[in-house]
């Protein structure tokens, strides 16, 4: 089996290794470094059948990947970029995928790509100043918020306000609490998978989750609504 140029997390039959800090650094370095050596990367050697399998396993998690990236980066354009990059890296490294929950494997890659992106962005921040891009506000078009036949316009508006309030409260959470909460509440990953995706021991995941929920409850307290 060909080795991918980029170190990717290995999930599957055996329990994921508890990534120590050094392991995480190596992984990140490999991904940041791997991103810089795109020219001569080893081909992942996928034939048409593998390509189909990759699409079948990974494309269904596109919304999850985007949602996770969006909450990590809090920027719709960046999230799109990162998701695209993540799928490409996942495709190139598909030979390193040992089975196991595909969504968790993919989200791990999304997370690493998001870190690479943030890292590069700090250098680009000064540069893009001159570009004067207008940041788009988000995906165009109405987001589905339920069956219009069953909701009155007033109810829909109230629900819209509630959704935005919750999103804002989540966005205000500091890391690593935000990612832990999103993976548990929005992506419904079990503790073991959150542990693998965030490269943290389960005990740490549990205490981060408890803290995240406490912070969120505090932020969402005034339930009477905005003044």
């Amino acid at each position, binding site marked *: 089996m060909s080795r991918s140029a980029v170190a990717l997390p290995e999930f599957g039959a055996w329990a994921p290794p508890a990534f120590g800090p050094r392991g995480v650094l190596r992984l990140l370095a490999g991904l940041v470094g791997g991103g*810089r050596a795109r020219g001569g990367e080893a081909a992942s050697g996928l034939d048409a059948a593998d*390509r189909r399998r990759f699409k079948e396993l990974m*494309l269904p998690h596109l919304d999850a990947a*985007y949602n996770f990236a*969006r909450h990590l980066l809090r920027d719709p354009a960046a*999230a799109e970029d990162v998701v695209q990059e993540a799928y490409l890296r996942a495709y190139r490294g598909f030979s390193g995928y040992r089975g196991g929950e595909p969504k968790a494997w993919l989200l791990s890659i999304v997370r690493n790509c998001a870190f690479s992106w943030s890292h590069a962005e700090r250098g680009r921040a000064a540069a893009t100043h001159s570009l004067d891009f207008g940041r788009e506000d988000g995906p165009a078009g109405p987001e589905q918020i339920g069956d219009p036949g069953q909701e009155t316009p007033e109810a829909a508006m109230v629900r819209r306000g509630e959704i935005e309030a919750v999103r804002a409260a989540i966005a205000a959470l500091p890391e690593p609490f935000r990612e832990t909460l999103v993976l548990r509440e*929005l992506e419904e990953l079990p503790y073991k998978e959150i542990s693998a995706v965030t490269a943290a021991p389960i005990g740490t995941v549990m205490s981060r989750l408890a803290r995240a929920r406490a912070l969120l409850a505090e932020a969402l307290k005034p339930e009477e609504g905005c003044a």
Partner: protein
Amino acid sequence: MSEACPDKILLLHGLIDGELDAANALELEAHLKGCAGCSQELERLEALRRRLADPAIGYAAPEGLRARITAAIESEGARERRRKTGWSARRVAPFVLGGGLAVIAASLALVVLMPATPSLTLERELVDDHVRSLLAQHLTDVASTDQHTVKPWFAGRTDYSPPVVDLKAQGFPLAGGRLDYVDGKVTAALVYRRRLHAINLFVRPAHGRDGAFETSRDGYNLVRWRKGGLEFWAVSDLNRTELEQFRDLFEQRAGG
């Protein structure tokens, strides 16, 4: 309002997440019967989770992202196939011949068959120019999204007239143009953008037989092509697939 028992807090979360095994769950539930603090905390947690349960809170991927990713995967596969077949022909050719004279012929064959790779110093220069244009806040000399403003601006500034096309509908809006200096000559640079990325398209008169070429350097992608006596270099940190899409679109539109 009473507080939950500190040593039970994480267990409460484990309970609502369904992560406790049967024995621990039973033990905790027994505790809850006699502990108001923990019971109230559990209620608060459940109320919070109900607020987080609306599926609309999660963001859905925007229109077109799925199609773009599928396309990128397909073209990645195509590129791998091209790369594999391309190399095997080049490796095999010299070994088909045999004998002393054949060795010379083989070396000649290698020289002839190897793709003409542009000098590495040119690639470095282009990447440096690209990065410098971003850092020095000198991305454009003429900042205009209108091709009819940018194209004539080069008249009298360069000895050739670079084609400038409008790709805004395809997601590559024009940002403007700039005079740069490449390989000892004044060179036209057209600036396009793609989401948050900048693409510098360097245009200069073509020389030699250099044709299509793609490479990467320091995390930037470079795509070169030739058309109508001009050589085009697109440099960006945009991923290669989309940069090649840019090339294809530009070539189509610049045909006229």
